[in-house]
Protein backbone atom coordinates (compact mmCIF):
# COMPACT_ATOMS: atom_id res chain seq x y z
CA UNK A 1 0.00 0.00 0.00
CA UNK A 2 2.90 2.36 0.79
CA UNK A 3 4.32 1.65 -2.65
CA UNK A 4 1.04 2.70 -4.25
CA UNK A 5 0.86 5.89 -2.22
CA UNK A 6 4.45 6.76 -3.09
CA UNK A 7 3.86 6.13 -6.79
CA UNK A 8 0.62 8.16 -6.77
CA UNK A 9 2.38 10.99 -4.98
CA UNK A 10 5.21 11.01 -7.54
CA UNK A 11 2.86 10.91 -10.49
CA UNK A 12 0.79 13.79 -9.18
CA UNK A 13 3.77 15.88 -8.04
CA UNK A 14 5.50 15.50 -11.40
CA UNK A 15 2.31 16.22 -13.33
CA UNK A 16 2.40 12.85 -15.13
CA UNK A 17 -1.24 12.41 -14.20
CA UNK A 18 -3.85 14.86 -12.95
CA UNK A 19 -5.93 12.43 -10.94
CA UNK A 20 -5.50 9.03 -9.34
CA UNK A 21 -8.78 7.12 -9.25
CA UNK A 22 -8.52 4.76 -6.32
CA UNK A 23 -10.06 3.41 -3.16
CA UNK A 24 -10.23 5.22 0.15
CA UNK A 25 -11.87 4.99 3.52
CA UNK A 26 -15.65 4.81 3.48
CA UNK A 27 -18.42 4.37 6.04
CA UNK A 28 -17.32 1.97 8.77
CA UNK A 29 -15.14 -0.69 7.21
CA UNK A 30 -16.29 0.10 3.66
CA UNK A 31 -14.04 1.22 0.85
CA UNK A 32 -15.26 3.88 -1.52
CA UNK A 33 -13.97 5.41 -4.77
CA UNK A 34 -11.81 8.49 -4.28
CA UNK A 35 -10.21 10.90 -6.72
CA UNK A 36 -6.80 12.06 -5.56
CA UNK A 37 -5.64 15.21 -7.29
CA UNK A 38 -2.81 16.43 -5.06
CA UNK A 39 0.39 14.59 -4.09
CA UNK A 40 -0.16 15.36 -0.42
CA UNK A 41 -3.49 13.48 -0.47
CA UNK A 42 -1.92 10.27 -1.81
CA UNK A 43 -2.00 8.94 1.74
CA UNK A 44 -5.79 8.63 1.43
CA UNK A 45 -5.35 5.73 -0.99
CA UNK A 46 -5.94 2.24 0.29
CA UNK A 47 -5.70 -1.24 -1.16
CA UNK A 48 -7.06 -4.30 0.56
CA UNK A 49 -9.59 -7.09 0.17
CA UNK A 50 -12.44 -4.56 0.50
CA UNK A 51 -11.50 -2.97 -2.84
CA UNK A 52 -13.77 -4.90 -5.16
CA UNK A 53 -15.63 -2.26 -7.16
CA UNK A 54 -14.44 -1.96 -10.74
CA UNK A 55 -13.37 1.68 -10.93
CA UNK A 56 -13.07 1.65 -14.74
CA UNK A 57 -16.63 3.03 -14.75
CA UNK A 58 -15.10 6.42 -13.98
CA UNK A 59 -12.76 6.39 -17.00
CA UNK A 60 -15.66 7.47 -19.19
CA UNK A 61 -17.24 9.93 -16.76
CA UNK A 62 -16.99 13.43 -18.22
CA UNK A 63 -16.28 15.17 -14.91
CA UNK A 64 -13.35 12.87 -14.22
CA UNK A 65 -11.95 12.93 -17.75
CA UNK A 66 -12.05 16.71 -17.70
CA UNK A 67 -9.31 16.66 -15.06
CA UNK A 68 -6.69 15.39 -17.51
CA UNK A 69 -4.62 12.21 -17.66
CA UNK A 70 -5.97 9.62 -15.24
CA UNK A 71 -4.15 6.97 -13.24
CA UNK A 72 -6.40 4.22 -11.98
CA UNK A 73 -5.87 1.71 -9.22
CA UNK A 74 -6.68 -1.50 -11.03
CA UNK A 75 -7.80 -4.91 -9.91
CA UNK A 76 -7.86 -7.62 -12.63
CA UNK A 77 -11.34 -6.74 -13.86
CA UNK A 78 -10.35 -3.07 -14.14
CA UNK A 79 -7.52 -4.07 -16.47
CA UNK A 80 -9.91 -6.09 -18.62
CA UNK A 81 -12.29 -3.11 -18.72
CA UNK A 82 -9.49 -0.85 -19.90
CA UNK A 83 -8.85 -3.19 -22.83
CA UNK A 84 -12.53 -3.50 -23.69
CA UNK A 85 -12.99 0.28 -23.50
CA UNK A 86 -9.94 0.65 -25.74
CA UNK A 87 -11.30 -1.90 -28.20
CA UNK A 88 -14.55 0.04 -28.30
CA UNK A 89 -12.59 3.27 -28.77
CA UNK A 90 -13.82 4.86 -25.57
CA UNK A 91 -10.36 5.60 -24.17
CA UNK A 92 -7.01 6.37 -25.73
CA UNK A 93 -3.70 5.06 -24.48
CA UNK A 94 -2.40 8.45 -23.46
CA UNK A 95 -5.45 9.17 -21.30
CA UNK A 96 -4.96 6.42 -18.78
CA UNK A 97 -2.24 4.84 -16.68
CA UNK A 98 -3.09 1.62 -14.88
CA UNK A 99 -1.67 1.07 -11.42
CA UNK A 100 -2.33 -2.62 -11.15
CA UNK A 101 -2.26 -4.21 -7.75
CA UNK A 102 -1.86 -7.96 -8.24
CA UNK A 103 -1.01 -10.28 -5.38
CA UNK A 104 0.11 -7.30 -3.36
CA UNK A 105 2.53 -6.18 -6.09
CA UNK A 106 2.21 -2.80 -7.78
CA UNK A 107 2.66 -2.74 -11.55
CA UNK A 108 2.60 0.43 -13.58
CA UNK A 109 1.08 -0.31 -16.97
CA UNK A 110 1.34 2.66 -19.33
CA UNK A 111 0.43 1.00 -22.62
CA UNK A 112 -2.46 -1.15 -23.74
CA UNK A 113 0.10 -3.76 -24.83
CA UNK A 114 1.40 -3.91 -21.28
CA UNK A 115 -2.16 -4.29 -19.97
CA UNK A 116 -2.79 -7.08 -22.50
CA UNK A 117 0.36 -8.90 -21.43
CA UNK A 118 -0.62 -8.67 -17.79
CA UNK A 119 -4.23 -9.70 -18.36
CA UNK A 120 -3.03 -12.78 -20.28
CA UNK A 121 -1.27 -13.99 -17.11
CA UNK A 122 -4.34 -13.61 -14.86
CA UNK A 123 -6.62 -16.64 -14.66
CA UNK A 124 -10.39 -16.19 -15.01
CA UNK A 125 -11.82 -15.34 -11.68
CA UNK A 126 -15.50 -16.07 -11.41
CA UNK A 127 -16.09 -16.91 -7.76
CA UNK A 128 -16.90 -20.50 -6.86
CA UNK A 129 -20.34 -19.39 -5.63
CA UNK A 130 -21.14 -17.66 -8.94
CA UNK A 131 -19.87 -20.64 -10.94
CA UNK A 132 -22.05 -22.98 -8.89
CA UNK A 133 -25.08 -20.75 -9.42
CA UNK A 134 -24.55 -20.48 -13.18
CA UNK A 135 -24.21 -24.26 -13.39
CA UNK A 136 -27.32 -24.72 -11.28
CA UNK A 137 -29.31 -22.35 -13.50
CA UNK A 138 -28.13 -24.23 -16.57
CA UNK A 139 -29.53 -27.48 -15.24
CA UNK A 140 -32.92 -26.02 -14.37
CA UNK A 141 -35.91 -26.57 -16.61
CA UNK A 142 -37.17 -23.55 -18.52
CA UNK A 143 -40.07 -23.07 -16.12
CA UNK A 144 -37.85 -23.43 -13.05
CA UNK A 145 -35.49 -20.86 -14.48
CA UNK A 146 -38.36 -18.55 -15.36
CA UNK A 147 -39.66 -18.78 -11.79
CA UNK A 148 -36.21 -18.18 -10.34
CA UNK A 149 -35.77 -14.97 -12.29
CA UNK A 150 -39.38 -13.83 -11.84
CA UNK A 151 -38.83 -14.10 -8.11
CA UNK A 152 -35.45 -12.33 -8.15
CA UNK A 153 -36.51 -9.61 -10.59
CA UNK A 154 -39.72 -9.07 -8.64
CA UNK A 155 -37.58 -7.09 -6.18
CA UNK A 156 -36.11 -4.88 -8.89
CA UNK A 157 -37.04 -1.22 -8.44
CA UNK A 158 -35.39 -0.15 -11.70
CA UNK A 159 -32.92 2.15 -9.99
CA UNK A 160 -30.45 1.21 -12.73
CA UNK A 161 -27.58 0.85 -10.23
CA UNK A 162 -26.45 -2.19 -12.26
CA UNK A 163 -26.30 -0.15 -15.43
CA UNK A 164 -24.72 2.87 -13.77
CA UNK A 165 -21.99 0.88 -12.05
CA UNK A 166 -21.02 -1.11 -15.15
CA UNK A 167 -17.85 0.08 -16.91
CA UNK A 168 -19.23 -1.11 -20.23
CA UNK A 169 -22.56 0.73 -19.85
CA UNK A 170 -21.04 4.04 -20.87
CA UNK A 171 -23.68 5.15 -23.39
CA UNK A 172 -24.77 8.74 -22.95
CA UNK A 173 -28.23 7.74 -24.08
CA UNK A 174 -29.35 4.24 -23.23
CA UNK A 175 -32.07 2.30 -25.04
CA UNK A 176 -33.88 2.31 -21.69
CA UNK A 177 -34.05 6.09 -21.78
CA UNK A 178 -35.31 6.28 -25.33
CA UNK A 179 -38.92 7.46 -25.22
CA UNK A 180 -39.62 8.26 -28.86
CA UNK A 181 -40.51 5.47 -29.30
CA UNK A 182 -40.56 3.88 -25.87
CA UNK A 183 -38.93 0.52 -26.58
CA UNK A 184 -38.89 -0.80 -23.04
CA UNK A 185 -41.59 -0.11 -20.42
CA UNK A 186 -40.34 2.40 -17.87
CA UNK A 187 -42.43 1.04 -15.02
CA UNK A 188 -40.91 -1.50 -12.69
CA UNK A 189 -43.53 -4.20 -13.23
CA UNK A 190 -42.82 -7.79 -14.23
CA UNK A 191 -42.49 -7.17 -17.98
CA UNK A 192 -40.64 -3.88 -17.53
CA UNK A 193 -38.08 -5.50 -15.25
CA UNK A 194 -37.65 -8.60 -17.39
CA UNK A 195 -37.21 -6.68 -20.64
CA UNK A 196 -34.69 -4.33 -19.06
CA UNK A 197 -32.51 -7.10 -17.67
CA UNK A 198 -32.70 -9.17 -20.86
CA UNK A 199 -31.67 -6.19 -22.98
CA UNK A 200 -28.84 -5.37 -20.60
CA UNK A 201 -27.54 -8.93 -20.69
CA UNK A 202 -27.70 -9.01 -24.49
CA UNK A 203 -25.84 -5.71 -24.76
CA UNK A 204 -23.07 -7.14 -22.61
CA UNK A 205 -22.79 -10.46 -24.41
CA UNK A 206 -19.15 -10.75 -25.43
CA UNK A 207 -18.32 -7.44 -23.76
CA UNK A 208 -18.78 -8.25 -20.07
CA UNK A 209 -15.47 -8.42 -18.21
CA UNK A 210 -17.08 -10.46 -15.42
CA UNK A 211 -16.25 -8.07 -12.60
CA UNK A 212 -19.59 -8.59 -10.86
CA UNK A 213 -19.82 -4.91 -9.95
CA UNK A 214 -23.42 -4.75 -11.22
CA UNK A 215 -24.53 -7.52 -8.86
CA UNK A 216 -22.68 -5.92 -5.96
CA UNK A 217 -24.32 -2.57 -6.76
CA UNK A 218 -27.87 -3.92 -6.64
CA UNK A 219 -29.44 -2.51 -3.47
CA UNK A 220 -31.93 -5.38 -3.25
CA UNK A 221 -29.41 -8.15 -3.84
CA UNK A 222 -30.50 -9.47 -7.24
CA UNK A 223 -27.64 -11.50 -8.78
CA UNK A 224 -27.92 -9.59 -12.08
CA UNK A 225 -24.28 -10.31 -12.86
CA UNK A 226 -25.19 -13.94 -13.51
CA UNK A 227 -27.18 -12.85 -16.55
CA UNK A 228 -24.28 -11.01 -18.13
CA UNK A 229 -21.80 -13.72 -17.13
CA UNK A 230 -23.99 -16.27 -18.87
CA UNK A 231 -24.34 -14.16 -22.01
CA UNK A 232 -20.60 -13.53 -22.01
CA UNK A 233 -19.81 -17.22 -21.76
CA UNK A 234 -22.25 -18.07 -24.54
CA UNK A 235 -20.38 -15.76 -26.91
CA UNK A 236 -17.09 -17.25 -25.78
CA UNK A 237 -18.36 -20.76 -26.53
CA UNK A 238 -19.75 -19.82 -29.93
CA UNK A 239 -17.06 -17.49 -31.20
CA UNK A 240 -14.03 -17.99 -28.97
CA UNK A 241 -14.05 -14.32 -28.06
CA UNK A 242 -13.73 -12.95 -24.56
CA UNK A 243 -14.55 -9.47 -23.33
CA UNK A 244 -11.56 -7.56 -22.03
CA UNK A 245 -8.78 -9.67 -23.49
CA UNK A 246 -7.54 -7.37 -26.19
CA UNK A 247 -7.42 -3.67 -26.99
CA UNK A 248 -8.27 -4.45 -30.59
CA UNK A 249 -11.02 -6.78 -31.63
CA UNK A 250 -13.80 -7.32 -34.12
CA UNK A 251 -16.77 -7.62 -31.85
CA UNK A 252 -18.25 -11.08 -32.29
CA UNK A 253 -21.85 -9.92 -32.20
CA UNK A 254 -21.35 -7.51 -35.11
CA UNK A 255 -18.75 -9.32 -37.22
CA UNK A 256 -19.45 -12.21 -39.56
CA UNK A 257 -16.75 -14.77 -40.17
CA UNK A 258 -17.22 -17.68 -42.58
CA UNK A 259 -15.98 -20.16 -39.99
CA UNK A 260 -18.33 -18.96 -37.23
CA UNK A 261 -20.07 -21.81 -35.50
CA UNK A 262 -23.76 -21.53 -36.12
CA UNK A 263 -25.03 -23.91 -33.52
CA UNK A 264 -27.44 -21.33 -32.22
CA UNK A 265 -29.44 -21.49 -35.47
CA UNK A 266 -31.86 -24.30 -34.91
Amino acid at each position, binding site marked *: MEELRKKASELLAGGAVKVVIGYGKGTGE*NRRPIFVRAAERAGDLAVDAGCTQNLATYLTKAEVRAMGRMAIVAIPSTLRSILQLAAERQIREEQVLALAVLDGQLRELATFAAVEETVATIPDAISAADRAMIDKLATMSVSERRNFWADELGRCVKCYACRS*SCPMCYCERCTMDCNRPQWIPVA*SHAIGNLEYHMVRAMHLAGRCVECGTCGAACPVGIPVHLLTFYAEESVRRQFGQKGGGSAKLDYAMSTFKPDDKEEFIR
Partner: protein
Amino acid sequence: MTDRYTLSESGVASLLDALAKAGRRVLGPKKIAERIEIAEIKTAAELAKEGQSTVSAKGTVFPKVERLLKYRFEGGKNVALEDVEPNARPTVLFGVRPCEARAFHALDVVFNWDYKDKFFNQRLANTTVVAITCTKADESCFCTSVGSRPDDPAGSDILLSPLKSGGYVAEVLTDKGKALVALAKAAFQPLTGAAEVVPAATVAPAFDAKLLERKLAGKFDSPVWLEQSLRCLGCGACAFVCPTCVCFDIQDEADTRQGQRLRAWDSCGMRLFTLHASGHNPRDKQSQRWRQRIYHKFAYYPDRFQTLGCVGCGKCSRACPVDMNLKQHLVEAAQ
Protein backbone atom coordinates in the same frame (compact mmCIF):
# COMPACT_ATOMS: atom_id res chain seq x y z
CA MET B 1 -53.70 11.66 26.42
CA THR B 2 -52.21 8.44 25.22
CA ASP B 3 -53.26 5.03 26.43
CA ARG B 4 -50.46 2.80 27.57
CA TYR B 5 -50.57 -0.98 27.68
CA THR B 6 -48.20 -3.88 27.82
CA LEU B 7 -48.04 -6.20 24.85
CA SER B 8 -46.32 -9.48 25.63
CA GLU B 9 -44.55 -11.65 23.04
CA SER B 10 -47.52 -14.01 23.09
CA GLY B 11 -49.73 -10.94 22.87
CA VAL B 12 -47.98 -10.07 19.58
CA ALA B 13 -48.82 -13.56 18.30
CA SER B 14 -52.49 -13.23 19.24
CA LEU B 15 -52.58 -9.71 17.80
CA LEU B 16 -51.26 -11.03 14.47
CA ASP B 17 -53.88 -13.78 14.54
CA ALA B 18 -56.63 -11.29 15.28
CA LEU B 19 -55.46 -9.02 12.46
CA ALA B 20 -55.44 -11.92 10.00
CA LYS B 21 -58.98 -12.89 11.09
CA ALA B 22 -60.10 -9.30 10.64
CA GLY B 23 -58.78 -9.34 7.07
CA ARG B 24 -55.88 -6.98 7.66
CA ARG B 25 -52.75 -7.40 5.64
CA VAL B 26 -49.76 -7.16 7.98
CA LEU B 27 -46.50 -5.88 6.54
CA GLY B 28 -43.30 -5.42 8.47
CA PRO B 29 -39.53 -5.74 8.44
CA LYS B 30 -38.57 -9.34 7.75
CA LYS B 31 -35.16 -10.88 7.31
CA ILE B 32 -34.94 -12.52 3.90
CA ALA B 33 -31.53 -13.85 2.84
CA GLU B 34 -29.04 -11.11 3.79
CA ARG B 35 -31.55 -8.31 3.67
CA ILE B 36 -34.44 -6.93 5.64
CA GLU B 37 -37.46 -6.41 3.41
CA ILE B 38 -40.87 -4.96 4.14
CA ALA B 39 -42.87 -8.12 3.60
CA GLU B 40 -45.96 -9.91 4.80
CA ILE B 41 -45.66 -10.91 8.47
CA LYS B 42 -47.61 -14.00 9.50
CA THR B 43 -45.92 -14.97 12.76
CA ALA B 44 -44.20 -12.95 15.48
CA ALA B 45 -40.95 -14.83 14.82
CA GLU B 46 -40.75 -13.43 11.29
CA LEU B 47 -40.42 -9.87 12.52
CA ALA B 48 -36.96 -8.28 12.33
CA LYS B 49 -36.98 -6.17 15.49
CA GLU B 50 -33.70 -4.42 14.83
CA GLY B 51 -31.94 -3.03 11.82
CA GLN B 52 -33.21 -1.06 8.85
CA SER B 53 -34.99 -2.59 5.89
CA THR B 54 -33.19 -1.93 2.61
CA VAL B 55 -36.23 -0.46 0.86
CA SER B 56 -38.57 1.68 2.94
CA ALA B 57 -42.22 1.00 3.75
CA LYS B 58 -43.19 3.86 1.41
CA GLY B 59 -44.56 1.37 -1.15
CA THR B 60 -47.51 0.69 1.16
CA VAL B 61 -48.94 4.12 0.36
CA PHE B 62 -46.98 4.94 -2.80
CA PRO B 63 -46.18 1.74 -4.71
CA LYS B 64 -43.36 1.57 -7.24
CA VAL B 65 -45.97 1.18 -9.99
CA GLU B 66 -49.62 2.14 -9.72
CA ARG B 67 -52.35 2.20 -12.36
CA LEU B 68 -54.23 5.49 -12.43
CA LEU B 69 -56.70 4.90 -15.26
CA LYS B 70 -57.50 2.76 -18.27
CA TYR B 71 -58.70 3.70 -21.74
CA ARG B 72 -60.04 2.06 -24.86
CA PHE B 73 -60.00 3.35 -28.43
CA GLU B 74 -63.52 2.93 -29.79
CA GLY B 75 -63.03 3.97 -33.37
CA GLY B 76 -62.67 7.44 -34.82
CA LYS B 77 -61.89 9.96 -32.14
CA ASN B 78 -63.81 8.16 -29.44
CA VAL B 79 -61.82 7.16 -26.41
CA ALA B 80 -63.54 5.51 -23.46
CA LEU B 81 -61.90 6.42 -20.19
CA GLU B 82 -62.23 4.19 -17.19
CA ASP B 83 -61.33 5.26 -13.70
CA VAL B 84 -59.68 2.67 -11.51
CA GLU B 85 -59.87 2.55 -7.75
CA PRO B 86 -56.73 2.25 -5.67
CA ASN B 87 -56.09 -1.24 -4.39
CA ALA B 88 -56.04 0.14 -0.85
CA ARG B 89 -56.20 -3.03 1.24
CA PRO B 90 -56.62 -2.50 4.97
CA THR B 91 -53.03 -2.82 6.11
CA VAL B 92 -51.10 -2.76 9.35
CA LEU B 93 -47.47 -1.77 9.10
CA PHE B 94 -46.17 -3.67 12.06
CA GLY B 95 -42.83 -3.25 13.75
CA VAL B 96 -41.37 -0.64 11.44
CA ARG B 97 -38.82 1.87 12.75
CA PRO B 98 -40.07 5.26 14.01
CA CYS B 99 -38.30 7.03 11.11
CA GLU B 100 -40.49 5.09 8.66
CA ALA B 101 -43.61 6.21 10.51
CA ARG B 102 -42.47 9.80 10.59
CA ALA B 103 -41.74 9.77 6.86
CA PHE B 104 -45.41 9.56 5.85
CA HIS B 105 -45.83 13.24 6.71
CA ALA B 106 -43.23 14.23 4.11
CA LEU B 107 -45.19 12.30 1.48
CA ASP B 108 -48.51 13.64 2.73
CA VAL B 109 -47.57 17.30 2.26
CA VAL B 110 -46.83 16.69 -1.42
CA PHE B 111 -49.74 14.37 -2.22
CA ASN B 112 -52.10 16.88 -0.59
CA TRP B 113 -50.34 20.06 -1.58
CA ASP B 114 -52.92 21.37 -4.04
CA TYR B 115 -54.41 18.33 -5.75
CA LYS B 116 -55.64 15.74 -3.25
CA ASP B 117 -54.26 12.44 -4.46
CA LYS B 118 -56.97 9.81 -4.17
CA PHE B 119 -54.59 6.89 -4.48
CA PHE B 120 -52.20 8.00 -1.77
CA ASN B 121 -54.96 9.18 0.55
CA GLN B 122 -57.01 5.99 0.37
CA ARG B 123 -53.98 3.86 0.96
CA LEU B 124 -52.82 6.01 3.88
CA ALA B 125 -56.31 6.05 5.39
CA ASN B 126 -56.33 2.26 5.28
CA THR B 127 -52.90 1.90 6.86
CA THR B 128 -52.28 1.65 10.60
CA VAL B 129 -48.69 2.16 11.69
CA VAL B 130 -47.26 0.28 14.66
CA ALA B 131 -43.62 1.28 15.10
CA ILE B 132 -40.97 -0.14 17.43
CA THR B 133 -38.51 2.16 19.18
CA CYS B 134 -34.98 1.65 17.86
CA THR B 135 -32.63 0.11 20.37
CA LYS B 136 -29.79 -0.07 17.84
CA ALA B 137 -28.50 2.43 15.31
CA ASP B 138 -25.58 2.44 12.89
CA GLU B 139 -23.16 4.91 11.34
CA SER B 140 -25.63 5.90 8.62
CA CYS B 141 -28.40 6.89 11.06
CA PHE B 142 -28.90 10.59 11.79
CA CYS B 143 -32.50 11.01 12.94
CA THR B 144 -31.41 13.26 15.82
CA SER B 145 -29.96 15.77 13.33
CA VAL B 146 -33.28 16.18 11.53
CA GLY B 147 -35.52 16.84 14.51
CA SER B 148 -36.39 13.27 15.37
CA ARG B 149 -35.14 10.58 17.72
CA PRO B 150 -35.03 6.77 17.92
CA ASP B 151 -38.22 6.75 20.04
CA ASP B 152 -40.08 9.44 18.09
CA PRO B 153 -43.86 8.80 18.23
CA ALA B 154 -44.63 11.09 15.24
CA GLY B 155 -46.51 9.30 12.50
CA SER B 156 -47.18 6.16 14.53
CA ASP B 157 -50.63 5.04 15.56
CA ILE B 158 -49.09 2.83 18.20
CA LEU B 159 -45.48 3.03 19.38
CA LEU B 160 -43.96 -0.08 20.95
CA SER B 161 -41.01 0.17 23.32
CA PRO B 162 -39.26 -3.14 24.04
CA LEU B 163 -39.28 -4.18 27.69
CA LYS B 164 -36.18 -5.61 29.33
CA SER B 165 -38.29 -8.52 30.49
CA GLY B 166 -39.61 -9.20 26.96
CA GLY B 167 -42.66 -7.83 25.23
CA TYR B 168 -43.42 -4.16 24.83
CA VAL B 169 -44.99 -1.08 26.29
CA ALA B 170 -47.60 -0.01 23.73
CA GLU B 171 -48.46 3.68 23.54
CA VAL B 172 -51.69 4.11 21.64
CA LEU B 173 -51.48 7.51 19.99
CA THR B 174 -54.40 7.84 17.58
CA ASP B 175 -57.91 6.67 16.85
CA LYS B 176 -56.53 4.23 14.31
CA GLY B 177 -54.38 2.83 17.09
CA LYS B 178 -57.42 2.51 19.36
CA ALA B 179 -59.32 0.68 16.62
CA LEU B 180 -56.46 -1.77 16.33
CA VAL B 181 -56.42 -2.39 20.09
CA ALA B 182 -60.17 -3.03 19.91
CA LEU B 183 -59.53 -5.85 17.43
CA ALA B 184 -57.37 -7.73 19.93
CA LYS B 185 -58.32 -6.49 23.37
CA ALA B 186 -56.89 -9.51 25.18
CA ALA B 187 -53.43 -8.92 23.70
CA PHE B 188 -53.17 -5.47 25.29
CA GLN B 189 -52.95 -5.62 29.07
CA PRO B 190 -53.20 -2.54 31.26
CA LEU B 191 -49.82 -1.21 32.26
CA THR B 192 -49.24 -1.76 35.95
CA GLY B 193 -46.24 -0.85 38.05
CA ALA B 194 -42.89 0.31 36.73
CA ALA B 195 -42.17 -0.98 33.24
CA GLU B 196 -38.47 -1.14 32.53
CA VAL B 197 -37.94 -0.47 28.85
CA VAL B 198 -34.77 -1.16 26.90
CA PRO B 199 -33.06 2.22 26.43
CA ALA B 200 -33.53 3.74 22.99
CA ALA B 201 -30.49 3.75 20.71
CA THR B 202 -28.04 6.60 21.03
CA VAL B 203 -27.73 8.63 17.85
CA ALA B 204 -25.35 11.53 18.37
CA PRO B 205 -26.49 14.70 16.57
CA ALA B 206 -24.17 15.30 13.60
CA PHE B 207 -25.32 18.68 12.29
CA ASP B 208 -27.88 21.41 12.89
CA ALA B 209 -30.60 21.25 10.22
CA LYS B 210 -31.54 24.92 10.69
CA LEU B 211 -27.93 25.96 10.22
CA LEU B 212 -27.71 23.68 7.17
CA GLU B 213 -30.75 25.37 5.65
CA ARG B 214 -29.18 28.81 6.17
CA LYS B 215 -25.85 27.63 4.74
CA LEU B 216 -27.54 26.15 1.69
CA ALA B 217 -28.94 29.58 0.86
CA GLY B 218 -25.43 30.72 -0.04
CA LYS B 219 -23.99 27.50 -1.41
CA PHE B 220 -25.81 26.96 -4.68
CA ASP B 221 -22.71 27.66 -6.77
CA SER B 222 -20.26 26.07 -4.37
CA PRO B 223 -17.73 23.58 -5.75
CA VAL B 224 -18.72 21.27 -2.90
CA TRP B 225 -21.46 19.65 -5.03
CA LEU B 226 -19.08 18.60 -7.77
CA GLU B 227 -16.61 17.39 -5.19
CA GLN B 228 -19.18 15.31 -3.31
CA SER B 229 -20.76 13.87 -6.44
CA LEU B 230 -17.61 12.83 -8.31
CA ARG B 231 -18.15 9.22 -7.33
CA CYS B 232 -21.96 9.37 -7.73
CA LEU B 233 -23.03 7.04 -10.53
CA GLY B 234 -26.35 8.76 -11.17
CA CYS B 235 -28.51 5.74 -10.42
CA GLY B 236 -31.74 5.87 -8.45
CA ALA B 237 -30.87 3.55 -5.58
CA CYS B 238 -30.94 6.36 -2.99
CA ALA B 239 -34.30 7.70 -4.14
CA PHE B 240 -35.96 4.31 -4.50
CA VAL B 241 -35.07 3.10 -1.01
CA CYS B 242 -35.91 6.50 0.52
CA PRO B 243 -39.07 6.73 2.66
CA THR B 244 -39.69 10.37 1.69
CA CYS B 245 -38.67 10.62 -1.99
CA VAL B 246 -41.92 11.40 -3.69
CA CYS B 247 -41.08 12.02 -7.35
CA PHE B 248 -42.87 9.98 -9.95
CA ASP B 249 -43.16 9.61 -13.68
CA ILE B 250 -46.43 9.21 -15.56
CA GLN B 251 -46.29 6.60 -18.30
CA ASP B 252 -48.88 5.44 -20.80
CA GLU B 253 -48.67 1.85 -21.93
CA ALA B 254 -50.95 1.25 -24.87
CA ASP B 255 -51.47 -0.68 -28.05
CA THR B 256 -53.81 0.16 -30.92
CA ARG B 257 -56.91 -0.91 -28.97
CA GLN B 258 -56.41 0.04 -25.35
CA GLY B 259 -54.03 1.40 -22.80
CA GLN B 260 -53.39 2.27 -19.21
CA ARG B 261 -51.80 5.19 -17.42
CA LEU B 262 -49.23 4.31 -14.78
CA ARG B 263 -47.43 6.19 -12.07
CA ALA B 264 -43.90 4.92 -11.44
CA TRP B 265 -41.15 6.01 -9.05
CA ASP B 266 -38.66 8.43 -10.56
CA SER B 267 -35.43 9.97 -9.32
CA CYS B 268 -33.86 13.42 -9.68
CA GLY B 269 -30.48 11.69 -9.74
CA MET B 270 -31.17 10.40 -13.22
CA ARG B 271 -30.24 12.36 -16.30
CA LEU B 272 -33.59 11.83 -18.01
CA PHE B 273 -35.49 13.37 -15.10
CA THR B 274 -35.15 16.93 -16.34
CA LEU B 275 -34.43 16.37 -20.03
CA HIS B 276 -36.63 18.70 -22.06
CA ALA B 277 -38.31 17.74 -25.32
CA SER B 278 -36.04 20.31 -26.99
CA GLY B 279 -32.98 18.33 -25.97
CA HIS B 280 -31.95 20.95 -23.42
CA ASN B 281 -31.29 19.65 -19.92
CA PRO B 282 -31.22 22.21 -17.10
CA ARG B 283 -29.47 19.65 -14.89
CA ASP B 284 -27.07 18.19 -17.37
CA LYS B 285 -24.32 17.27 -14.90
CA GLN B 286 -24.42 14.82 -12.02
CA SER B 287 -23.23 17.53 -9.63
CA GLN B 288 -26.35 19.57 -10.45
CA ARG B 289 -28.54 16.57 -9.83
CA TRP B 290 -26.82 15.76 -6.54
CA ARG B 291 -27.27 19.39 -5.46
CA GLN B 292 -30.95 19.18 -6.34
CA ARG B 293 -31.35 16.11 -4.13
CA ILE B 294 -29.85 17.95 -1.15
CA TYR B 295 -31.67 21.24 -1.77
CA HIS B 296 -35.02 19.57 -2.30
CA LYS B 297 -34.88 17.81 1.04
CA PHE B 298 -33.11 20.41 3.16
CA ALA B 299 -33.97 23.79 1.61
CA TYR B 300 -37.07 23.62 -0.61
CA TYR B 301 -39.06 21.31 1.68
CA PRO B 302 -38.64 23.45 4.82
CA ASP B 303 -39.27 26.59 2.78
CA ARG B 304 -42.49 25.28 1.24
CA PHE B 305 -43.84 22.80 3.77
CA GLN B 306 -42.17 23.80 7.05
CA THR B 307 -40.81 20.29 7.39
CA LEU B 308 -37.69 18.51 6.22
CA GLY B 309 -37.78 16.06 3.34
CA CYS B 310 -35.60 13.64 5.28
CA VAL B 311 -36.05 11.56 8.42
CA GLY B 312 -32.40 10.54 8.86
CA CYS B 313 -33.00 6.81 8.40
CA GLY B 314 -29.77 6.42 6.40
CA LYS B 315 -31.26 3.94 3.93
CA CYS B 316 -29.80 5.89 1.00
CA SER B 317 -26.30 5.66 2.42
CA ARG B 318 -26.56 1.93 3.01
CA ALA B 319 -28.01 1.27 -0.45
CA CYS B 320 -25.53 3.41 -2.38
CA PRO B 321 -23.18 1.28 -4.48
CA VAL B 322 -20.41 3.87 -4.08
CA ASP B 323 -20.93 4.73 -0.42
CA MET B 324 -22.36 8.23 -0.79
CA ASN B 325 -22.88 8.80 2.93
CA LEU B 326 -25.58 11.44 3.28
CA LYS B 327 -24.79 12.28 6.89
CA GLN B 328 -21.15 13.00 6.08
CA HIS B 329 -22.12 15.10 3.08
CA LEU B 330 -24.61 17.14 5.12
CA VAL B 331 -22.08 17.74 7.88
CA GLU B 332 -19.76 19.10 5.21
CA ALA B 333 -22.50 21.20 3.61
CA ALA B 334 -23.44 22.71 6.99
CA GLN B 335 -19.94 24.07 7.49
